[in-house]
């Protein structure tokens, strides 16, 4: 009996120590919140929209590669890529494989941004009135713009007047909550993708005010119009492109900077910037700086042959400089890697679009005549102005556009829509379209591959 007591005492203590406490295992993440808590209040929905801007500012999207790839693919001999990074080098040489790192990460980050936007759109019911319109408008603007860049890079060119049943990119319009078989989305047709882009951007144009009430650099109705003018131009829908470009110009909200150089490397948006990704020392990415600037890798070596394209006295030539390290020519458009914003659409482009579309569509001109619009651009860079409409033709307009917008991510797209060629490659050369990334084809059996690349062809 005594022995029993001797054992029972400690055993009792031990059994207390052994008592299970399930609550002991509860932990909560400190840097994250659970997904089902997100779409429960208006503030979170607003935050998700800001998250979407952060997502598209990524170095693989509007902070870099959405603007770099069209230059790499569109360049013939204007510049060489002398760096050791294989992925951009492959793209510059039009030898990109389907496992190219940049081809892959741009795709991944674009759809990541789309999922963020779709999440914000899913939470619209938590908002009311003008704020609901604003969030919906900005979200649709972002979605429309991202799909536009995706379809331009990863699918064959839109054919004006055609059925456009060629495969575009997968269209995902709902946020992902679970991942299952239905997540294997096939490629929508180019037509369906453009239809969605137009729908999103036109919604944005209608829903947004001319000035964003929260931040001047968030999207507004004019930004939507500016991107719409690009979309219509790409579709060779010149009258709509003209309408949208004219709407932006005639709003009077934007004005050309005094000098050409003044349009670049700005910490705050310039008067000419319709839309720019914001970069500060704390936040944002400027990957164009990485490759263009002598202060960084300086991998993009400009060739004299490109400088020869400019007329003598063109002030735009003054933006080029010799790399102090190796004497190679560099473009000075992307020289502020610390807090220089990444401009996406400038007013100059709207003038050039209006000039081109007015020229193509003929009299009556909308807004102003092509000669006046072109002279605005030429005058700023100290070039002689055109005196007569017969002084220039369409080729001159397109050349002006090329030189004005060079290194800003429009080269390839302009070549394609005007059916010109890149060196010996015609505009519809399969290597001027990116491959669907290998990881995506491996993960989604419903995807088919673009012509000339590894993987099951469409």
């Amino acid at each position, binding site marked *: 009996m005594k022995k029993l007591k*001797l*054992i029972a005492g*400690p055993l009792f203590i*031990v059994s207390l*120590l*052994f008592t299970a406490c*399930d609550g002991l*295992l509860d*932990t909560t*993440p*400190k*840097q*994250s*919140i*659970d*997904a*089902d808590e*997100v779409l429960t209040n208006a503030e*979170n929905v607003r*935050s*998700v929209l*800001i*998250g*979407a*801007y*952060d*997502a598209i*500012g990524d170095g693989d999207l509007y902070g870099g590669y959405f603007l770099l790839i069209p230059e790499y693919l569109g360049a013939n001999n204007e510049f060489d890529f002398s760096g050791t990074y294989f992925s951009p080098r492959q793209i510059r040489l039009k030898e990109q*494989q389907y496992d190219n790192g940049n081809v892959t990460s741009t795709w*991944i980050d674009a*759809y*990541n941004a*789309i*999922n*963020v936007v779709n*999440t914000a759109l899913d939470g619209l019911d938590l908002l009311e009135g003008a704020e609901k319109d604003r969030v919906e408008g900005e979200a649709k603007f972002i979605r429309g713009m991202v799909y536009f860049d995706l379809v331009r890079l990863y699918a064959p060119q839109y054919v004006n007047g055609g059925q456009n049943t060629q495969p575009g990119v997968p269209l*995902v319009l709902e*946020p*992902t*909550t679970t*991942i299952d078989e239905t*997540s294997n*989305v096939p490629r929508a047709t180019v037509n369906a993708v453009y239809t969605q882009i137009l729908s999103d951007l036109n919604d944005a144009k209608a829903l947004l005010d001319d000035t964003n009430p929260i*931040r001047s650099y968030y999207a507004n109705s004019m930004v939507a119009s500016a991107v719409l003018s690009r979309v219509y131009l790409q579709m060779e829908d010149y009258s709509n492109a003209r309408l949208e470009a004219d709407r932006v110009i005639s709003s009077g909200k934007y004005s050309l900077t005094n000098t050409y150089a003044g349009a670049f490397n700005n910490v705050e948006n310039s008067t000419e910037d319709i839309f720019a990704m914001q970069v*500060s020392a*704390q*936040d*944002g990415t400027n990957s164009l700086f990485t490759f263009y600037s002598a*202060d*960084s890798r300086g991998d993009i070596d400009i060739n004299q042959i490109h400088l020869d394209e400019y007329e003598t006295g063109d002030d735009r030539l003054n933006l080029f400089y010799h790399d102090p*390290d*190796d*004497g190679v020519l560099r473009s000075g458009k992307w020289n502020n890697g*610390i807090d220089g914003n990444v401009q996406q659409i400038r007013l100059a482009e709207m003038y050039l679009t209006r000039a081109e579309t007015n020229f193509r569509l003929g009299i009556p001109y909308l807004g102003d005549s092509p000669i006046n619009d072109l002279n605005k651009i030429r005058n700023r860079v100290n070039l002689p102005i055109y005196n007569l409409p017969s002084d220039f033709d369409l080729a001159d307009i397109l050349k002006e556009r090329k030189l004005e917008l060079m290194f800003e991510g429009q080269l390839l797209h302009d070549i394609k829509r005007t059916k010109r060629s890149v060196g010996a490659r015609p505009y519809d050369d399969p290597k001027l379209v990116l491959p669907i*990334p290998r*990881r995506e084809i*491996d*993960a*989604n059996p419903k*995807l088919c591959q673009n012509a000339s690349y590894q993987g099951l062809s469409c």
Partner: protein
Amino acid sequence: MKKLLQLSNCSMLLLFVTVGTLQAQTVSGIVVSAENNEPLTGITVLVKGTNKGTATDLDGKYELDLTSNEFQNGTLIFSGVGYVQLEVNVNSRQTIDVALSIDTQLLDEVVVVGFGSIVRKDMTGNVSSVKSKELSSVPVNSFETALQGRTSGVFIQKSNGKLGQGINIRVRGTSSVSASSQPLYVIDGIPVISESQSQIADTNPLSDLNVDDIQSVDILKDASAAAIYGSRGANGVILITTKSGQAGSTRINVSYERGYSSETNRVEYLNAAEYVELFTEAAQRSPSGDLSGSYLENNWFDYFAQGTDWKNNEIDTDWQDESFQNGSNTDFGVQISGGTEKTRFFVSGGYSDQIGIMRSNEFNRMNARLNLDHSASKKFDVGMNLSVSRTENIRVSNDNQFATPLQGVAQSPLSPVYTPEFDGNDNLIGFSDVPNKNTLYYNFLRHIKGVNNNQTVFRNIGNLYANYNINDNLAFRSEAGLDLLFQNEDYFADSNTNTGENTHGYGDSRWVNLVNYTLNNYLTWNQQISENHHLTTVAGITFENSNRYQTYVSGTNFPTDDFKKLASAAEITGGNTTETEYKYLSYFARANYKLNDRYLLSGSARIDGSSRFGDNSRYGFFPAISAGWIISEENFLSDLGALSFLKLRASYGLTGNSNVGNFPSRGLYGGAGYAGSSGLIPTQTPNPDLKWERTAQYNIGLDFAFLNDRVGGEIDYYIKQTDDLLLNVNVPATTGYTSQLRNVGELENKGFEFVINTQNSVGVFRWSSSFNIAFNKNKITNLGGQVIEGGFLNRAVEGEPIAVMYGKEYAGVDPDNGDALYYLHSSDGKNYDAGTTNVYSDANNVVIGDPNPDFVGGFTNNFNYKNFDLGVLFQFVYGNDIYNGGGRYQSANGDFFDNQTRDQLKRWQNPGDITDVPEARLFGSNGSNPSSRYISDGSYLRLKSVTLGYSLPQSLLNKLQLRDVRLYLSGVNLLTFTDYKGWDPEVNTDLYDLSDNLNIGNDFYSAPQARTISFGINIGF
């Protein structure tokens, strides 16, 4: 009568005693260890054929009374755990001093297992053990390196030759794809932090330990041993026991060591003349037309030469001379131990200072330890082990940065290292001390001069225990452990570096504070039920909590380069704090049953709860069962003269792996900022069913010993099958995510381990050998159709071993035109009939390499003659492939201006040339794309260590009043036999996370291992 009888009995007794006293002879002596002449306490001294005996005291002394017969004709038997039993004829000597040699078969050695220990003879599982003596005999800065080659079935690889870098350990193969396969580390019963906390390349938190403090390392390999650690046992468990004090006189040991090190190997690169020759030819043959002449000379050679005369090879830089430096190490240690029967202590202090073989790499460590045990009463013991340490690692940049020294080999040999200076006639007169800024790639010396990259770790591991013996059979033990790790990474790059040049300097500081605490409470019941039945059981509960807090600040714009702290940064560019935690709550039990000293049965079970897993599967059950049969105890075998021990073992059990992030089962949103406004973005989709991966392991083994234990060993065969793999399953990126952690797939490791220990010679000249070899075959049996990519060419592919290299197979050079050729193969696998192609993208990808070794092992020989001792360890790895990720730049037949390895001179030049180096074509990508061209055999045999020691003779010691003095000379990595073409076959680039199972067998300008020669002295007082 009765009284008389009593009396007579008394007198008989008296008489007997008197006779005994009269005839008795006393024999006395001292028993020491033959290894080191240390007195041995507790050695049993028995008169053969009687029960008469005694034991040695604290000073190794004994005294025994013998009858005259015994004194003349008797034999004494000296025996003790861990020593070879010795029989000595008394031969009428009054003093008999003996030296006992260590029993290398270790059948009686005590093996530490989780929550207890067991005598090796009675073990039914598989545990590899290494004792302090073996650990301390090799000069290394981390104990794992000392285990290399000494433990069968444990593959240990240092990732490179940078100091304090991460280490890969695989116990019986890799048993996971996406979760870490590193083992669990337990120090004195408390699981400790072993994962790298560095924000750049992995470092090794176990390098905070002082090897001199370690008593033993026991590695639990099979499931019956490891299942007591449940959901964390699948990768094996490494139990480290630190030294404790012994009652007796106070012992002081002082040790000093000084070593010198250099790289194990260099690779040959082109000199200036060869560089000009190869690149001139490459330019002539460029697909862009003949680029030799002014383009090549003005744009490139002149630029590299920076005004020096490259045509006459005025500059001929061997960049390896700049990358490497002479390494050294100085180690100093003091250990004091002793105490009384009631209170024992072990105190140690150490200082280690190492200079690495890579330029600017240094590492130093200060540490102290107090281990205290106190017996409050016969029933109650308490104690604590406490260690504090500070390590400082002055680091070099990660691989794949031109700032890391060894990547300097990519620079042209025409480039001066420092800025050249000229006289008025443009003649070179010397160099400034400013590193040349105009090199092909960023000159790493700019980084060496302008960067501070220091990692400082403050580590405090402590545990308290109380043990209460409730009665003779039942004991309760409570342990509380704390592991504190505070780590600072302080980084500053001045305005002359590429990191700081655009921002007037750049600095950041990152602190990680990790607090782990563990509570163990368990009961042990140990009973001899009857003469033939013995039962030991243990049951308990353990709770573990780990909390990690991190702060980070970065800034730019420093007034001058002399200001290196963020207080002087004009702009703070970033800052954050993060916190995360995990918890385990577990219940465990184990029983060991022994019948007739020959039939062994053991069972264990653990229920593990983890905060890491989904609500639907928070607890898991991990049972194990094992049995052993000591055949040599059977009567029918007792007469087999040569055979001294034979045991058959078998085990089966389940273990788990939960080495994944802390919240993998939840759907999560994280913060994101844009232009100063805060936002939210989805980061993870939920998987509430997520649970640990499960490994079922079967083990069958045989332990044997022959010839009085002079030959002994172990043979084991195992099958480890892992299912419910924690797999980062690729999902379509169109979902907004790239992967999701799911329980998908199965893999298998099968292997065979063989250990043999022999005592080849005993007596004055002693020679013992130990050989171990372990074969392991890994195969991914099911991945649910997933293909998961890893570093470079590594992939997880169904039906193949983990991390096979997958890509184009190089087919050599077309003798007609110098084109690189690739085997076409077919989309479903290898098919050499399909022929070759010179179009890289036309070739199908196939498995072209396997980074997993077929077998690994080691061979140790120890020799002792009089006062000399010699230890020689060979270590080998066989059958693994290494992919050189830098090959496409450095061995690319002049594709770009990177300096080329010298073997590229064998390039194809004329039709008919037979070579495996394609035609040199500048910018031509002729054979430079990733392929099997850059894979080579990574097998090696290495003379891992040689140590020659001399102990001062006792006579001299007595004069000097010292207990012992040993001088030694030691060499590490002295010789390496390998076909590997790179620097060193023991390599895995630190470019990727080391815990990533899909990054193995890759080299990328990785620092080679160090070859070290050192001398040292140990003095005992």
